[in-house]
C-alpha cells in the first residue's frame, strides 16, 4: 500500500495485523480462543472523486486512503493550492471546516498540514494531508476559502509553519513577541517564554 515514510507508523501497525476486517478472524474466533480482532487499517480508496483528481493532476503523487470510513488524500506540498482550487471549483468542496497541523519530529517531513473540507452539495467530508519539512513553507489557501485566514495564523502561531502570500501572518493566540512554537513536540508542557513573562507580567516565572 503506502511506501513513503509518512505511513511508516501506520504501516508497522498494519503488518502485525494483516487482515483489514475483523470478520476475517470471526470464523476462527470461537469462545475458546478469544483473539483480538484485527486492528483497523488505512485502506486505499478509489472513487469518482479520486479519479477526477488523478485525471486533473496526472503528474503529482496523490495517495487516496480511507480509515474508519473517512477519506483522505496525501498530497505533496506544491500541489496543495492547485488541488484545493480544483476541489472547490469542480468538486463542490466549498467549505473549509478546519485547517491545522500535526508535528511528527521523528519523520523527515516534520509537519503535516491537515485540511478538513466539506461539500454542501455532496454532503461529504474530505481530508487533505500535506507533509511539510521544518523549514519549508506552504501556499496559503486564503484565496480559496476565507476561513483559512485565522486558521493559518493559528497554525503559524502554534507550529511555526509559514504560509506564503497570507494577507497578515502573525501570531493570534499568543502575544506577538512570544518566542517559541508551543505545539511542537520539542516544546515541553511546562516551558514558557520566561523573558516575555518577566518583562510583561513582572513575575519571576509563570509556574
Amino acid at each position, binding site marked *: 500500500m503506502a511506501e513513503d515514510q509518512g505511513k511508516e*507508523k*501506520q504501516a508497522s*501497525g498494519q503488518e502485525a495485523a494483516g487482515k483489514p476486517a475483523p470478520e476475517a478472524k470471526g470464523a476462527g474466533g470461537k469462545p475458546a480462543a478469544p483473539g483480538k480482532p484485527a*486492528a*483497523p487499517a*488505512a485502506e486505499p480508496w478509489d472513487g469518482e472523486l479520486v479519479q477526477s483528481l488523478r485525471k486533473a493532476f496526472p503528474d503529482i503523487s496523490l495517495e487516496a486512503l480511507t*480509515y*474508519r470510513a*473517512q477519506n483522505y488524500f496525501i498530497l505533496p506540498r506544491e500541489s496543495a493550492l492547485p488541488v484545493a482550487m480544483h476541489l472547490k471549483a469542480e468538486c463542490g468542496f*466549498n*467549505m*473549509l*471546516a*478546519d485547517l*491545522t497541523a*500535526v*508535528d511528527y519530529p521523528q519523520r523527515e517531513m516534520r509537519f503535516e498540514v*491537515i485540511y*478538513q473540507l466539506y461539500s*454542501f452539495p455532496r*454532503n461529504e*467530508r474530505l*481530508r487533505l494531508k500535506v507533509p511539510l519539512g521544518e523549514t519549508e513553507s506552504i501556499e496559503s489557501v486564503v484565496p480559496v*476559502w*476565507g*476561513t483559512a*485566514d*485565522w*486558521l493559518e495564523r*493559528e497554525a503559524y502561531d*502554534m507550529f511555526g509553519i509559514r504560509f506564503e502570500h497570507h494577507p497578515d501572518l502573525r*501570531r*493570534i*493566540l*499568543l*502575544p506577538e513577541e512570544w518566542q517559541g512554537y*508551543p*505545539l511542537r*513536540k520539542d*516544546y515541553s*508542557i511546562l516551558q514558557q517564554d520566561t523573558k516575555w513573562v518577566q518583562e510583561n507580567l513582572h513575575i519571576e516565572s509563570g509556574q
Partner: protein
Amino acid sequence: MMETAPKATFLDANEIVINMGPQHPSTHGVLRVILKLDGEKVLGTECVIGYLHRGVEKIAENRTYVQFTPYVDRMDYVAAVSNGLGYCEAVEKLLGVEVPPRARYVRTILTELNRITSHLLWLGTHAMDLGAFTPLFYTFREREEILKVFENYCGARLTTHAFRIGGLQYETYDGFEEQVKAICDTFPAKIDEYEVLLTLNRIWLERTKKVGILKAEDAIDLGVTGPVLRASGVQWDIRKAMPYAAYEEFEFDIPTGENGDTYDRYLVRVEEMRQALRIARQAVDRLPSGPILGKVPKVIKPAVGEVYHSIEAPKGELGYFVVSDGSTQPYRVRVRPPSFINLQALDRMVRGHLVADVVAVIGTLDIVLGEVDR
C-alpha cells in the same frame, strides 16, 4: 516660556482608533476589539484574542484519553455537555466502540437541554447588551430548572463532565424522566414570554434588523456554522446531515432565516430552543432500557490512526480531530472551535455600521472566549 500650540492636531483627523476590551461588559469575555472609526461609523475592526488561551491542545498530549475528558468542558464552558459529547464520540469512533441505545438517548436529552441553557444565556446577555435588561432575569430563572437536572444527574451545573468514553457513567436518577417532561411541558410558555418582550418590540427591531448582515456565500466562504449560517439562509445542521448520538430517530425542524441579519439570528435561536424541547420530549418518551456503557477496554489505547468527528454544538460545528499513535495518550487533539471561526466574520459584518452595532454583532455571534482561545 509658554509653549505655542501645535499647528495641526490629531483632532483634525477623521479617523480614530478606539480600543474595546479586553475588559468590557459587552464583549462576553476577554475579547479585545480594536475599532477604526470615522465619527461613529466603523471603518474596520481587528480582534485581538488569546487572553484566555490555556493550551488545552497541548495538555491533551500529556493526559490519557479519559483524563482529558474534564478539560474539554472548560472550553465552551456554557455548553459543556456538548463539548463532552463531541470528544467522547470522536474517541469512540477512533476505538470503533458502539454506544448502547439508552446511553445515546440520554446523551441526546442532556445535549438538547444544554442547547437550551446555552441559548437562554445567549438571549439574556445579548438582550442586556442592547439595553433590554428584563429578559436576562427571566432566562436565568428558567435556566435554573435545567441546571437542576444536570446537578441531579452528574453533580455539576456548568462543567458537567457528563459523558464517558463508551457511554455514560451514571444511570439516570429517580425522577429524571419526570423532571425532563416537566421542563418540556412548562418551557414553551416561557419562551413565548421572551418573545412577547422582544420579537415585535420596536426598539429591538430597530437595533437588530439589517444589522450585521452576512450573506450566504460569505458565510460559507468564511466557514461560519451554526445558527449564524442558518440565519443566512443555508439550511444545514449536522444533526440532520451527518447524524450522531440518537438524532436520526427523532423528528425536528431546522429553523432558517432569510436575511442573515441580527434579527434573523435571534429568531433562529429562539426557534431552536423550541425544537430542542421537541427532541428532548421525543427522547424521554421513548427512552429504552439497557446498559449505559459500551464495550470499552479498561485501558484505552486506540489503534494508530486519526479521526475527525464533529457535532452541532449550540455555537456551531464543534469538531475534534484526534490523532492516535497507539499509546494511552492522544498524539494530537485538535478542537475545531465554532466561536473562533464565527468571530472571524465580525469584521465583514460590522463595516459601515455604527459603534453601537458592534456590540449587537458580537452578541449575535454568540461567542464564548473559552472556546475561541482554548
